[in-house]
């Protein structure tokens, strides 16, 4: 009798121990985020003390005179991500529509897998392909055309004028677009699939075409999820490192033209961090890293909140 009691006590104690262990590791994940922010903040203090908030508005980058400002890489990060979004969003949308509404059932899986393989290719491969294969073609065939046609436009023309070098912000943005397509399109596909069949069939029954069903029924129903998917892609595009480092040109100069080389936060880190000499130089790079982390954190948090909102609405309805 007492041995049964003992083993019951033992079981209860082990239960507590197991729960405590799993809780500890969950807490560890939680602490990891705080750890990253605090560590990077401490690391960026010397630069923030030296330059103050002007660090974020200055385009200086002079290791010899020890003058640093984050404007050029921050600007480049946003511009390349923006280009990626302009190209990536419509393409992802098209792919998601094709998979959910048009594709015959037997074709859905192979296409889905092929698109996901695009996400599986390491980013350094995109970089090599971009530098050796894509950039020369882009310089020879696409950029002259852009120069002649878009470059002649009034006002916005200068954005598209520049030497056809192949490398630069436009190339980087284009390659980023290909890299974010799998992420954005897979979220869009998932949210399109939750639209109740009855809703779509009602619209078809009223005589709507497939496009009208997508535009007037599916999209309004899933818009929070679609925006969530876009934000997820944006978060990826902002933080992508290796692919951009190969083709961005690594120039600390601000220029209006998208054809010109530039820099992003992540490629500045990849190129310069191990070579940075002196506390202020290193600390300036860490400040850039912290900035990147905060930006992506906010973008990804918004993405997550939007997706949670959509799934909560789903939960209430079903």
């Amino acid at each position, binding site marked *: 009798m007492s041995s049964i009691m003992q083993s019951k006590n033992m079981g209860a104690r082990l239960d507590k*121990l197991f*729960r405590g*262990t799993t809780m500890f590791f969950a*807490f560890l994940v939680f602490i990891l*985020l705080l750890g990253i922010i605090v560590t990077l903040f401490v690391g960026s203090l010397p630069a923030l003390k030296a330059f103050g908030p002007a660090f974020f508005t200055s385009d200086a980058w002079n290791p010899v005179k020890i003058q640093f400002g984050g404007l050029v890489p921050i600007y480049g990060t946003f511009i390349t991500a923006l280009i990626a979004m302009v190209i990536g969003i419509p393409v992802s949308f098209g792919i998601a529509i094709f998979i959910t509404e048009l594709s015959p059932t037997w074709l859905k899986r192979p296409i889905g897998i092929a698109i*996901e393989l695009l996400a599986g290719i390491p980013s350094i491969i995109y970089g*090599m392909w971009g530098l050796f294969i894509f950039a020369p073609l882009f310089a020879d065939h696409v950029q002259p055309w852009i120069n002649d046609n878009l470059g002649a436009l009034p006002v916005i023309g200068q954005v598209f004028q520049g030497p056809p070098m192949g490398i630069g912000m436009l190339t980087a943005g284009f390659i980023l677009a290909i890299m974010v397509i799998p992420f954005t399109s897979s979220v869009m596909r998932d949210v399109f699939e939750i639209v109740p069949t009855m809703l779509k069939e009602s619209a078809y029954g009223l005589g709507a075409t497939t496009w009208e069903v997508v535009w007037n029924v599916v999209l309004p129903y899933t818009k929070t999820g679609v925006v969530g998917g876009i934000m997820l892609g944006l*978060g990826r595009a902002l933080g992508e490192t290796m692919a951009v480092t190969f083709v961005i040109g690594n120039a600390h100069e601000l220029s209006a033209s998208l054809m010109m080389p530039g820099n992003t936060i992540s490629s500045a880190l990849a190129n310069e*961090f*191990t070579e940075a000499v002196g506390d202020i130089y290193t600390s300036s790079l860490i400040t850039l890293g912290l900035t990147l982390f905060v930006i992506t954190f906010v973008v990804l948090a918004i993405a997550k909140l939007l997706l949670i909102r959509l799934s909560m609405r789903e939960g209430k309805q079903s």
Partner: protein
Amino acid sequence: MSQLNNKRYLKRKIINNVTLSISLLTVLFALTFLVWILWTLFSQGLSHLGLDVFTKMTPPPGSSGGLLNAIVGSLYMVLIATFIGTPIGVLAGTYLAEYGKSGWLAPTTRFINDILLSAPSIVIGLFVYEVAVNSVGHFSGWAGALALSLIVIPVVVRTTENMMQLVPSTLREAAAALGAPYWKVIVNVVYRSARTGIMTGLLLAVARISGETAPLLFTALNNQFWSADMSKPIASLAVVIFQFAMSPYEDWQHLAWAGALLITLFVLTLNILARTIFRSSQSQN
């Protein structure tokens, strides 16, 4: 009147056909790049992927060699990162799936974990630099493995939680009714039925870190010579590819293409393997 209606109908039909054709084109657009990149890798890399790549060390510029030290370095770091990251990820995922119904910790951790899943890997590298390189004073293989393990953890947490939630609660109740304490229910029943799913997540995590370059740049650094000492800078396939591809030397660029082909084949095979394993386990149930 009927003519007007016909015209309208025609217009709607044309819009429909145009937009749906564009949708087909977007799929072809994405597939083109997949095929183009893979074709580039094979045409540039296959001819340089000889036995030398696996038996010789990385050469100085201008001479021939292989990638042996880089391959071994990558294997070491990926293995160690997986060994560190898996138990942490599985246990944290267990908490989220099994004990996460009340309290603030589980929802917060879940939210943070999903953000870490997409966080820029170069920032992870920066963090590990500050924690494990700057404080020690030198780059090391351990720091590289640590950085990679921080990328493994969120992937494993996410898949573990998802897979454990798929286990029907009747199974847990049946085990509990036999008098099993909860930890035994989890270990003997839930883990066992979620096993293939968790394995899938693990394979995907390994695939992800095998191609990672950014977090290794300033943690493991690089090493041109043979070194299996984890407390010293160590070469990795990804960083060597980066260095060699950016160099002006043709021998180095050729090796970079061979390495690129190798790493991509490895990563894509793992990806497909993970999906096949998962799919066959799903169809069994």
